[in-house]
Structure formats: structure tokens, C-alpha cells
């Protein structure tokens, strides 16, 4: 692992930005200005960032309904994202998509996705384009544990192996598929979902998704393999979702103290800080400085989103087609 100080500090900034973005939404949603359903990513930051720090803008990711972290990690503009979540004209999608459909094709972010399991076939398809283009680009499907029981995901994995495509299937196992645990819903091997991917004929491995370095390193190997024609890989990263399936979920299925315990003992940001300060790679002071900058950015993003106009009503039928 040869991450530079700049890379480490950037990774910390990205994870912190995701955490503050989501925690702030958790505070703002009850105020009633954010329309629709919102699914928060807090607790999973090391996965999005550990994966995406291996990628360039020309590489692609697909995402899920819980997509804010993926968007930030892939470089989407935070203020544009916030405005989108508030349904404003200044949002990344002009207020058309909202929380579940944020996309920025210029950053290789092929869209958050409201359909569980919607992303992996899309990533596999993007990787056909990359293979044919021959420039070593890769596609990563960031998918949840819920999607691992979806038929199209299996079909995508098989086709990826069949064509030896440069695609990586990342399963973020955050403990709950909506409100049902994979311990119940994944019949074979209980919570070990990547063993199925091995059955399709691709390398598969599993790591602690709250450990940025483990995620980064395991993804680095997979990306290297994909870029050099070695075909697809499946990765499972375990973590714990800090909030409910959606904001407003009663979460009666969770034991008391489960999240508090995770925040205390397996928090990716805390772990990162400890690792880099113990190893004298970064100073606490410089990360404190990042914290302050991130908080300011999120404050500005919320204020600017609230001040921004809604899209004009005439936008309803705009962009249904390119040409009609």
C-alpha cells in the first residue's frame, strides 16, 4: 500500500464529506423541505471511497438507492447533489431525479438507481464499451446485499465472466436488505454472498468494509486485473448501516445499542484516523482542518439549495426524448 499523504488526506476528506452530508440530511429531513424518500449511507463511507480512489473519471460506477456516498466518492459536485435532493433547478439533474437518481456522466457516475439490482447489468454493459475501446477503463457495480438475490445480477455476473469483461461487482453488506437481514435472505452460505460469484467463475473475496485500507487494497487488485484484461471480480465488503432503510424506518428489527456499538468500535472514520496517526502518516490537526472545511461546505450546500429556485413547470416534458 503506497498511498501518498495527498491521497490519504483526499480519502479522509471524501469519507468525512459523505458522513457530514448524510448526517446533515438526517437533521434536515424532519424539517420538511426535502421531498420524497431518502436513504442514507452513513457507516459505509470507507467502501465508496476505498473503491473510487482506485478509479478515474473515465471509469464508470453504477449505484443504488443509497447512492449519495457513491456520488461524492466518484467526484460529483456536493452542492449540485444537495440542490438535487431539495428538488431545485440547480441540482445535478435539474430537480428531475432527486436523491435516488443523482448522476453525473462526466464523472463516470452512471446514476443512483431506485431499482434494487438495477446497477450490475448496466456496469457490465459499460464494461463492454470499455473493453471494445481498449483504453483500460473499468466499470464498478456498487450494489447492496439486497441486490445479491436479484436474478439480473446473476445474469450480469455470468455474462461478465463469459466475455472476460473489465467489471467489478461490489456487494456492500450493510447488515440489512431494506428491513430484512441477509442472514435470513441469502440461503446459501448465509451471509457469505461472494462465494456465489466464485461459482460463476470469477475471483471473489471479502473484507471488512469499515477498513478503508482493506477496501482500497482489495479493489486495487481487482481494478488492476480488470484493466489488464484479467476479467471480472466480485468483492463483498461488510459494514453496518447507521440509519434505517429510509429516513422514517421504525427499525424495530435492530437490537438496542447495535448502531451505538458500531459507531464506537467499527467506525470507518475513527479507524482511519487512528491508523494514519499511529503510523504518523497524517496529523490530527490537518484532519481537523479538513473537518472544518467539510462542515462549511455542507452548510453552504444546504443554504444554497434552500435558496435555489424550483425548476419551471414547463420542465415536466423536457428531456423525455432527445428528439421527438
Amino acid at each position, binding site marked *: 500500500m503506497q498511498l501518498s499523504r495527498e491521497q490519504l488526506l483526499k480519502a479522509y476528506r471524501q469519507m468525512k464529506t459523505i458522513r457530514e452530508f448524510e448526517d446533515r440530511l438526517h437533521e434536515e429531513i424532519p424539517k420538511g423541505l426535502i421531498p420524497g424518500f431518502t436513504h442514507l449511507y452513513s457507516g459505509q463511507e470507507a467502501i465508496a471511497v476505498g473503491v473510487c480512489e482506485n478509479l478515474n473519471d473515465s471509469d464508470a460506477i453504477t449505484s443504488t438507492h443509497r447512492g449519495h456516498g457513491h456520488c461524492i466518492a466518484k467526484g460529483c459536485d456536493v452542492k449540485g447533489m444537495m440542490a438535487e435532493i431539495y428538488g431545485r433547478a440547480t441540482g445535478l439533474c435539474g430537480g428531475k*431525479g*432527486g436523491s435516488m437518481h443523482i448522476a453525473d456522466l462526466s464523472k463516470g457516475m452512471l446514476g443512483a438507481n431506485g431499482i434494487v439490482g438495477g446497477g450490475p447489468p448496466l456496469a457490465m454493459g459499460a464494461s463492454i464499451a470499455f473493453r471494445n475501446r481498449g483504453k483500460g477503463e473499468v466499470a464498478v457495480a456498487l450494489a447492496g446485499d439486497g441486490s445479491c438475490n436479484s436474478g439480473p445480477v446473476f445474469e450480469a455476473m455470468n455474462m461478465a465472466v463469459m466475455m472476460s469483461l473489465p467489471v467489478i461487482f461490489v456487494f456492500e453488506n450493510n447488515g440489512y436488505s431494506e*428491513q430484512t437481514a441477509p442472514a435470513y435472505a441469502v440461503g446459501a452460505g448465509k451471509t457469505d454472498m461472494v462465494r456465489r460469484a466464485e461459482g460463476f467463475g470469477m475471483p471473489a473475496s471479502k473484507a471488512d468494509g469499515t477498513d478503508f485500507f482493506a477496501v482500497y487494497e482489495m479493489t486495487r487488485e481487482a481494478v488492476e486485473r480488470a484493466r489488464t484484461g484479467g476479467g471480472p471480480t466480485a468483492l463483498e465488503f461488510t459494514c453496518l448501516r447507521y440509519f434505517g432503510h429510509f429516513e422514517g424506518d421504525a427499525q424495530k428489527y435492530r437490537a438496542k445499542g447495535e448502531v451505538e456499538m458500531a459507531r464506537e468500535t467499527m467506525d470507518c472514520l475513527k479507524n482511519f484516523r487512528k491508523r494514519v496517526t499511529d503510523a504518523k502518516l497524517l496529523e490530527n490537526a490537518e484532519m481537523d482542518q479538513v473537518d472544518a472545511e467539510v462542515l462549511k461546505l455542507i452548510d453552504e450546500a444546504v443554504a444554497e439549495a434552500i435558496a435555489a429556485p424550483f425548476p419551471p413547470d414547463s420542465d415536466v416534458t423536457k428531456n423525455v426524448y432527445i428528439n421527438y
Partner: protein
Amino acid sequence: MAIKTYREAITEALMIEMDRDERVIIMGEDVAGGAGGSSGVRDNQSGIFGTYPQFHARYGENRFIDTPISEAAIVGAAAGAALAGLRPVVEIMFADFIGYCLDQIMNQAAKFRYMFGGTSRTPMVLRTAYGAGLSAAAQHSQAIYPIITHIPGIKVAVPSKPADVKGLMLTAIRDDDPVVFFDHKALFGVQGEVPEGDTAIPFGKGMRYREGKDATVVAIGRMVHFSEAVVDKLAKEGGITCDVIDPRTTSPLDEDIILASVQKTGRLIIVDESPPRCSVAGDISAMVAMKGFEFLDAPIQMVTSAHSPVPFAPNLERAYLPSGAKIEEAIRKSVDF
């Protein structure tokens, strides 16, 4: 008569049938919720829309089944279980997700009876929540009942009122053909009188919810409520009175109630939450144009959503949907023709 919510009416119908017939089972994603969770508590929120209170405790694992997120397998399993003698009720949480399991509906359940020469029965119900109004955006808001109505072999219910939800659900579960049952997700809290006991309502029988003489407003699902509000306002202002007709099922469709009303009023306005192309509104328009042309004193008016995906921003979503103002404009245009 007791006042109940649309949600309570669904629950009541499901319980009547679950209690009455052990062949009835319920399957779906998070129908109880909480399976495998760290607290061990089931019945997390009684299904995502709260329609199954304590069903897990009451009916047990064999008849009330939490599934993985596997829509195609869920609906295929319902069709197979129905062929094998059960009467499954399966939930696809949001109607948009029917995209994943359309084959199981369209190529499997719908066609068994016909393909097998009348030798099979497929008594299954697919329950699903549809509709815009909650800023749930393009993949959680669609009114796709026309797509399903198009399929021969499937019956389709799109109820608007608590009493109808109960009565039609009883019929749907008892019906030996496959039924897709659309609940509007913005109607779960709506209240209305719900008769006690076994109050099955036949499919293909519409209901007139307002009576008038100047125009016929045919409305589907949540649009019945929108239309009633406009028609009440016009009646109160004096001058224009309208029939408001809810077909309640789009397949079979009660053509008689619509034609009889149009014969009386000479004017037809159809209010349908779906986009306009190949819609139920278009279907009813064509039917009246073919069978009731001589009754019409004005062109048929359709008030539908826009020919676009459902937008997220609340103002765009309102602009997308039919509204009271658009319905009133259509009624006036028809009456003033």
C-alpha cells in the same frame, strides 16, 4: 357503518381470507420485515405500507413469507403455487418493480389457462402500490395499470375507496384467475365507510359516486377523489352537475355504466393518472366512440398525466399529474362545446 382507512380495509379483507381459507398465503419483501435482524423483532412495520399488522405472529412462517428482493421469483412462485393448489397473494412493493417480474405475469400466469386448453386455474393476486404524489421520483411513482390491463388473461383492480378495496380484494383472492391489484400509495390513509363482514364486490361492476346531468366524469383510482372534489365544487357554484363514475376494475371494464351515463349526459371526461398513450383513458375513449358515438354532444376529453417519466421536484410532480384545475377546465370545455 364503521369508518375505516383504505389501509385498514385492505388488512380486513386479507385477514378474512387468511382466516377462512388456509390455501391463502402471503409472500413479499419485508411483508413482516425484520427477519434475521439483531433484535429478533418481527412485524417491523407490518409491511412497508403497514397493511399486515401482526400477520407474522398470527399466520406463521408457512403462510406469511418474507422473501429476498427477488421479484421475478416471487411472482413466478405465486403462479406455480397457484397451479399446485394454493391461493397466493404476493406483494410487489412498488408497481414500478413489476418491470422485474413482467414475464411471470405476462408470459406465465396470464396464459396458463388458455395455453393449457382450459385445464388449469391460477388463483393468485399480485398486490402492488402505484402512483405519484409523494415525490418518490421516476422509479417509485408510476401508474402502470394500463400495461397490465393490456394483457389478456389478467384481471385488474384499481380501487379508490376503502369499501371497494375490501370488497374487491375479497373477490380477487376468491377468483380463480390471476389478478393484479393496484393500491394507490397516497390513499392508504384515506377514510371511508366500510361495511362489516363478507362484502365481496364483483369485478367489472363500476360505481357512480356522484350524480349529475351535464357531463360524465370517469375517473380511475386516486383520480376519483380529485374528480369528486371538482364536481362538488361545480355543483356548489351552481350550473354544472356531473356523474362521477369509478370503473373500479379496468379489466374487466364495466362498459354499461359508462355508456348509460354518457347516454344521459352526452359528455365524457376521463381522468386517468397514467400517461396518455395506450392508457385506460384512451381505451375508454375508444370504447365510447365506438359504442356510444350517437350519445356524444361534445368531443371526449382526457385528463391524464404528461407523456413523461414522473419528475421528482414537487412542483414538477404537480404539473405532471392531473389536477383539480385541469379537470375543471376539461369539464367546462366539454359543457361549453
